[in-house]
């Protein structure tokens, strides 16, 4: 099965790659929340421009990002098809406000997804995990994120093995009871295999001195550059809402 890891482009060199992971996560996350909280189309568009600028600075290939964006667009598409039309007393009427609203949703959702790439696509997954721990995210959650992330790729392969062996015995997926029950048992088998594997892996880890604490070679230190970058991105986040405020005042 084909899959692409988010940190595939961690090796590139850019100002965002060289930014302290903690400052990077906090700043860009603030920008994401700021954009999602906007309710004017013009300001949301400005937010999208900020997102694209950060993406371009990070040098992550656009093609890679586009490939990931398709899910978001697929999810939002029904809103475009349904929201502009309102049913009034049996008649279908076109409602331009609904269209504008759908457009606003699309812009905000795309901006949020684009910003994920400069945020965590510009460092190794291990650095992200370490940064989360430094940001006082509970250790149990950080550990679960690391383990689960690693196992997802193992199980995608494992399930495609199970799936292939089903196919080779002539199994075809159709809309019937047999298909659901067979896939159910295949999933059950995946669980049993993974459960047994986790016991072996955990014992092996304990025997190598695993205590639950993360040990990486990453050293985090906030330099002047890190603060400047944080100031700029936080400025974008706060600026969007200041603009909204000014805009609102002028209306009165």
């Amino acid at each position, binding site marked *: 099965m084909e899959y692409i890891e988010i940190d595939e482009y961690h090796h590139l060199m850019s100002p965002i790659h060289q930014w302290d992971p903690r400052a990077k996560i906090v700043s860009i996350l603030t920008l*994401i929340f700021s954009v999602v909280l906007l309710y004017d189309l013009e300001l949301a568009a400005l937010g999208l421009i900020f997102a694209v600028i950060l993406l371009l600075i990070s040098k992550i290939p656009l093609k890679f990002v586009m490939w990931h*964006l398709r899910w978001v667009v697929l999810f939002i598409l029904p809103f475009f098809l349904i929201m502009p*039309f*309102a049913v009034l007393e049996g008649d279908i009427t076109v409602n331009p406000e609904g269209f504008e609203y759908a457009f606003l949703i699309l812009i905000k959702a795309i901006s949020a997804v684009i910003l994920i790439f400069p945020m965590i696509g510009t460092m190794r997954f291990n650095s992200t995990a370490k940064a989360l721990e430094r940001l006082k995210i509970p250790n149990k959650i950080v550990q679960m*994120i690391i383990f*689960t992330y690693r196992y997802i790729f193992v199980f995608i392969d494992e399930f495609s093995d199970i799936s292939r062996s089903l196919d080779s015995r002539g199994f075809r997926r159709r809309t019937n009871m047999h298909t659901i029950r067979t*896939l159910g*048992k295949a999933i059950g088998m*995946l669980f049993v295999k993974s459960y047994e594997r986790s016991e072996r892996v955990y014992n092996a*880890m304990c025997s190598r001195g695993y205590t639950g604490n993360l040990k990486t070679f990453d050293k985090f230190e906030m330099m002047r550059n890190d603060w400047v970058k944080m100031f700029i991105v936080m400025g974008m986040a706060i600026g969007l809402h200041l603009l909204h405020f000014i805009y609102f005042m002028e209306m009165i």
Partner: protein
Amino acid sequence: MVHISDGILSPGIWISGYVITIVILAFTLRKMKTEDIPRLSVITAAIFVASLIHIPVGPTSAHFLLNGLAGVTLGVFAYPCIFIAIVLQSFLFQHGGITTIGINTVNTGVPALIAYAIFRLGTRKDIHKRAGIFGAIAGGVAVTISVLFLSIELVTTGEVFENIAIIIASAHIPIIIIEAIATGTIAAFFVKVKPEILEGYKGVKR
């Protein structure tokens, strides 16, 4: 479809989603021991991968939600596990949203806890005979509640979403049936093959 993207729900709803999630997480994480973490993560990853599997439904296809199964196998730990799965889904696979992580966890995780309660109560007397039927009920109920939550949230956000809520709810009817059959099958399979995988199996009279 239970994963809602950024920018749709009103801030009041997604912020309360975070509040509820943080409260339940604080409660369940305290019960979790360090030695549980590898086992729970592995099952979380397995549920994550299993929910990517597609099943043909007439001309289109549906995929499993498996939050009922998460409840049946993980018990109260289903909540932190579902939280982790949703975090990974939104950050690493861009499925769902970031501001909606809290509310998505509520929509998926609370039904999982209810599913666990149903399975636990139903199979208390005879888990070998009843795992299939109560697994099915737990699986079906979990998806039904998830869809109900989502529809209520959409409608409270704005009247414009009424049509969408109706379409989403009706599109999930076949998924509820599929999910019920699959969860029942898997629960019965576990009781036969590896009962200790079920959180509810501990302390059950055999």
